């Protein structure tokens, strides 16, 4: 009974006039022209584009797997493989980067490079792959850029100074659903730097605002909110990022959909901190 059913389905499928059988399977084996930025090593120290032809690209590959295949081919030809960053390959670590056809993490919204699948490209496409471009993100090699500026911004204040001891019972600190959700939305930032890469001003405001918002919205983070906003913005400026002019390219390209509402919150936090907060130097001593 079951065999009959499957056969009928197959029969219908093959005879269906709406599905072209040959193009359906042609997708499996794409040919791509890859225009990739190469810098350092045997390539120009200031960088250059090198074009590679790649056959047998499956639509099921992720973009990084496609680059793995290219690198295997390059290694087998005794050529230098393309340097690119990757780690978790499931869209949560923020390690993968690169600008694909003018879009950080590729043309799809809400997707990291590792989760971008080759089915979104067509046979014969030319794909231009560049590193994230910002003065504060210098290129180390090929598609790898130095994003330590973000680490230094986090070190300046993107944390909660916790004393020793156990985490307290979750129910002991009431947090409303709305605030918890807003904080969580900001906490979804994976710190990949796509906002900087997308911003025509190479501004890091979306990243900083996500970190400031994530902590300032919760009771544990509120205590140091003003000091944090001042310190993180100061570090951001020292790193040489551009200034935000509310173009919102960051939100449009963010793989985690972080909203520019967070930038407005950072502005509020910073303005109120600048006018109503003064850090007192800790002179030590005290009771006991």
């Amino acid at each position, binding site marked *: 009974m079951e065999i009959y059913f499957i056969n009928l389905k197959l029969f219908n499928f093959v005879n269906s006039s709406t599905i072209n059988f040959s193009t359906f399977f042609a997708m499996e084996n794409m040919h791509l022209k890859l*225009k990739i*930025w190469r810098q350092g090593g045997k390539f120009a120290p200031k*960088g250059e*584009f090198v074009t590679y032809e790649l056959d047998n690209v499956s639509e099921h590959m992720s973009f990084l797997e496609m680059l793995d295949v290219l690198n295997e081919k390059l290694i087998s030809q005794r050529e230098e493989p393309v340097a690119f960053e990757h780690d978790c390959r499931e869209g949560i670590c923020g390690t993968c980067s690169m*600008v694909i*056809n*003018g*879009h950080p993490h590729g043309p799809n919204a809400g997707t990291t490079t590792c989760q971008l699948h080759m089915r979104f490209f067509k046979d014969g496409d030319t794909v*231009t792959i*560049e590193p994230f*471009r*910002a*003065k*504060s993100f*210098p290129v180390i090699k090929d598609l790898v850029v130095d994003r330590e500026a973000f680490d230094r911004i986090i070190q300046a204040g993107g944390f909660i100074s916790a004393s020793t001891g156990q985490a307290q019972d979750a129910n002991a600190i009431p947090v409303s659903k709305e605030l918890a959700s807003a904080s969580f939305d900001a906490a979804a930032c994976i710190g990949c730097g796509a906002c900087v890469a*997308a911003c*025509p*001003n*190479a*501004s890091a*405001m979306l990243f900083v605002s996500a970190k400031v918002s994530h902590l300032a919205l919760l009771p544990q983070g509120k205590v140091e909110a003003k000091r944090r906003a001042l310190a993180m*913005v*100061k570090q*951001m*400026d020292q790193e*040489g*990022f*551009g*200034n*935000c*002019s*509310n*173009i*919102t*390219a960051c*939100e*449009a*390209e963010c793989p985690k959909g972080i909203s*520019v*509402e967070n*930038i*407005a*919150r*950072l*502005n*509020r936090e*910073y*303005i109120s901190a*600048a*006018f109503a907060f*003064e850090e007192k130097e800790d002179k030590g001593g005290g009771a006991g």
Partner: protein
Amino acid sequence: MSWLTNTLSPVGLSWFGGFLTSSIGKKVLMALTGLFLISFLPIHLLGNLYLMKDDGGRDFNLYAEFMTHNKIIKAVSYTLYLSIVLHAIQGLLLWRQNASARGQNYAVKVTRAVGTNARAATRMGWLGTILLIFILLHMYQFWLQMKLGNVPMSSYGGEVIKDLYTPVMVAFADPIFVVIYVVSMIAIAFHLWHGFQSAFQTLGLNHSKYTPFIKFLGKAYSVLIPAGFAVIPIYVYGDTMGWWKIGCGCDGVWDRAECMIECI
């Protein structure tokens, strides 16, 4: 820009210098001066509408006389000049700084935006430069000539006052000036399309309850106000060319309805 912090230090305001030289402080200055300039536009437009009144420039000249002699308006006008200077200088500095923050440009670059016009938003520097040139020309042509007294005098009810109406009419009869004026109004429309709502975002005013209204207001404002300004030279130029003359010799916007009724 630590010179500002150092200058303000003796009066105990080094923190304020630090704020003004931070990336957010710079933008707050742009937002506040920008909003002040935005608030000035409808007042300027209301005065300009007198230019279309068919009274030989009487009401326009009386309005100009009032604007140049009222003490409160004088104080506000100095704030306005300061705002223009600060907005322009800060804007140019930000433009230069932001352009250099990229380092190397992309070979392929597509700018997407959410809730604003990416083309206008990424060209605020160019649009602002057009506006600065226009404002300088505008102030040289009318404001400076008025201040220097290089305008004819007219007498209304025994009172002799400066006649700004005549040089304005001469300028508006020149097609080159009309084109410059209209192009500048298009530039201001695009500048405001992004700038109006952007100022509120910079000041931290972004909330799902009122931001949609601010964005709507900004779009309406950026179309209607520049359109209002642009209509006047087009009307005056058309008037000198006799474009608006229709049957019965009816002329002028104000008396046309009346004239047409009589004609019928």
